[in-house]
């Protein structure tokens, strides 16, 4: 079939068709795709994969396509975490893995910053926030460890070609309103399974205007929408980010949704969006910040792949520069990667946060996963992605989710606060 006779395709269909070696694919088909990149971390990776690989007597299909990141159990705090991280390090050495990032930051941020995820690829990650890779125009989704075993011994994975739900944002975001607020509002509207494990695609002028890291926040929280993938058509912004990451001249041209393709469309107005807060215990419990404003908080947490990238740290510093957090409130900052922490230091962003009273935590998943620095029976406002009961440690912890602006403003006021009042 020649290209002209091809039925209109969504970005998701084009990416999957390439990965399974076809001209086109139809929604609902189950296809087997070749995997371009398999990413996993110390928790989902070696400690679970190694025993199964040994049992099978199987080898990795292609070490150059495997990336291992130590981010969940570092820095090691007890004998169990030391054991888990030791397994990862020993295995990486035994396998002579070429791509290992140990204690460099969180996989969803570190891996793109090293240029591993590029437009047109099909990638899997051993973590539910793997849709972050969709911000680069790659079809990337999360899988469990056993499925990852299947990938690393065969180089393949099955997929049901998804429907595409386009989330179109017109207008421009007001000052103090971010990609995180866009996501919380959409999760509040559609619910945590509103994505129905289909592909969502973020588009429209307000999305195109976002920085690469803000786009990553959208794709990242596609997980909380229940989508399999959260795609953004790559463009000059994508190419510029990848060039800085050492990947010159990526071809972004083929990767877009045809105008006459079949998709579900929802339109939003960025200009009308106010800062959003999700109250305990669900990201879908999201509303404009005014509903929860005034609720006292004990801890303000700026961390995670979702909310502690350089752009997030910059946003927090914009609120906190020259000010002090409220008495009795702990402000914790755990940058998402060493790279971002270094840049924040160079720009004076980190100092502004420290001067405001922030405690600097390691560049790791930390309290977000409840693995590293679990929270006690406290009320937290956090830039992370999830506020399930017990997620950050104690089942009695109450976690509110917001943007870095909102979390920083809440740290200043000692209660959930609207950042626009501070920025004004």
């Amino acid at each position: 079939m020649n290209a002209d006779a091809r039925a209109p395709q969504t970005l998701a269909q084009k990416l999957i068709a390439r990965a399974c070696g076809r001209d086109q694919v139809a929604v609902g088909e189950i296809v087997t795709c070749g995997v371009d990149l398999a990413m996993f971390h110390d928790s989902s990776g070696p400690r679970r994969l190694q025993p199964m690989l040994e049992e099978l007597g199987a080898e990795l299909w292609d070490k150059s396509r495997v990336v291992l990141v130590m981010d969940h159990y570092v820095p090691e705090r007890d004998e169990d975490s030391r054991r888990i991280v030791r397994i990862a390090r020993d295995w990486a050495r035994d396998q002579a893995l070429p791509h290992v990032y140990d204690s460099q930051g969180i996989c969803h941020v570190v891996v793109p910053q090293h240029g591993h995820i590029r437009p047109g690829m099909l990638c899997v990650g051993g973590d539910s926030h793997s849709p972050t890779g969709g911000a680069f125009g790659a079809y990337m989704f999360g899988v469990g460890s056993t499925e990852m075993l299947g990938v690393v011994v065969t180089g393949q994975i099955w997929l049901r070609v998804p429907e595409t739900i386009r989330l179109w944002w017109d207008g421009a975001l007001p000052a103090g309103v971010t990609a995180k607020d866009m996501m919380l509002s959409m999760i509040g509207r559609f619910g945590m399974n509103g994505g129905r494990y289909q592909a969502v695609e973020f588009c429209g002028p307000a999305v195109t205007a976002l920085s690469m890291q803000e786009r990553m926040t959208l794709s990242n929280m596609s997980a909380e929408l229940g989508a399999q993938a959260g795609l953004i058509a790559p463009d000059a912004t994508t190419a510029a980010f990848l060039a800085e990451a050492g990947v010159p001249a990526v071809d972004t041209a083929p990767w877009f949704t045809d105008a006459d393709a079949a998709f579900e469309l929802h339109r939003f107005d960025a200009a009308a969006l106010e800062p959003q807060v999700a109250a305990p215990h669900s990201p879908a419990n999201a509303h404009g910040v005014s509903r929860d404003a005034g609720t006292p908080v004990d801890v303000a947490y700026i961390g995670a792949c979702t909310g502690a990238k350089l752009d997030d740290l910059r946003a927090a510093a914009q609120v906190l520069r020259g000010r002090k957090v409220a008495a009795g409130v702990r402000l914790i900052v755990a940058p998402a990667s060493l790279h971002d922490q270094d840049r924040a230091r160079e720009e004076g962003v980190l100092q502004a946060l420290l001067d405001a009273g922030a405690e600097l935590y390691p560049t790791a998943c930390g309290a977000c996963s409840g693995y590293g620095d679990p929270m006690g029976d406290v009320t937290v406002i956090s830039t992370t992605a999830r506020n399930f009961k017990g997620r950050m440690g104690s089942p009695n912890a109450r976690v509110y989710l917001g943007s870095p602006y909102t979390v920083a403003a809440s740290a200043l006021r000692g209660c959930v606060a609207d950042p626009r009042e501070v920025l004004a």
Partner: protein
Amino acid sequence: MTHRVWRLPADIDTDALAPGHAMKHGIDVIAKHCLEAVRTEFAREVRPGDVIVAGPNFGIGSSREQAAAVLVQLGVAAVIAPSYSGLYFRNAFNLGLLLLTCAEAESLQEGEQVSLDVDQPAVRSADGRVLACEPVPAFLMEMVRAGGLLAQLRRRFKDQPDKAST
């Protein structure tokens, strides 16, 4: 054979099934904490062959497959719910746990005895109602019957080592 129903609400997430604080341990320990924040007695009192009947969005959250493995460990025969997290759905079948997607699941009661017709698939309630479930692709049913993806890979790699390099 009938199965005793454990009735759970909607939106049971992976942190509820496999709490983060227990994740550093093996599956036997994680299983003891399964659903501790939702039904404290569950891990202690669940018996092999019991089924979970839940509201929509079962398994939302993390990719941690321990959230499915704990139910296999505890002998849960199947989960019956109107909808699942897609990632959990994949993990469950990979681990050999049968999930049945049943629009009327929530009409089933705590403690009632149900029977499963896996081939249809359908659930028969204690009062004789037949609740239809969405069809499961044949290759996934095969995977569950084999005991999960690892069992299938074992067959492919260990029992037929000549295929391991293909």
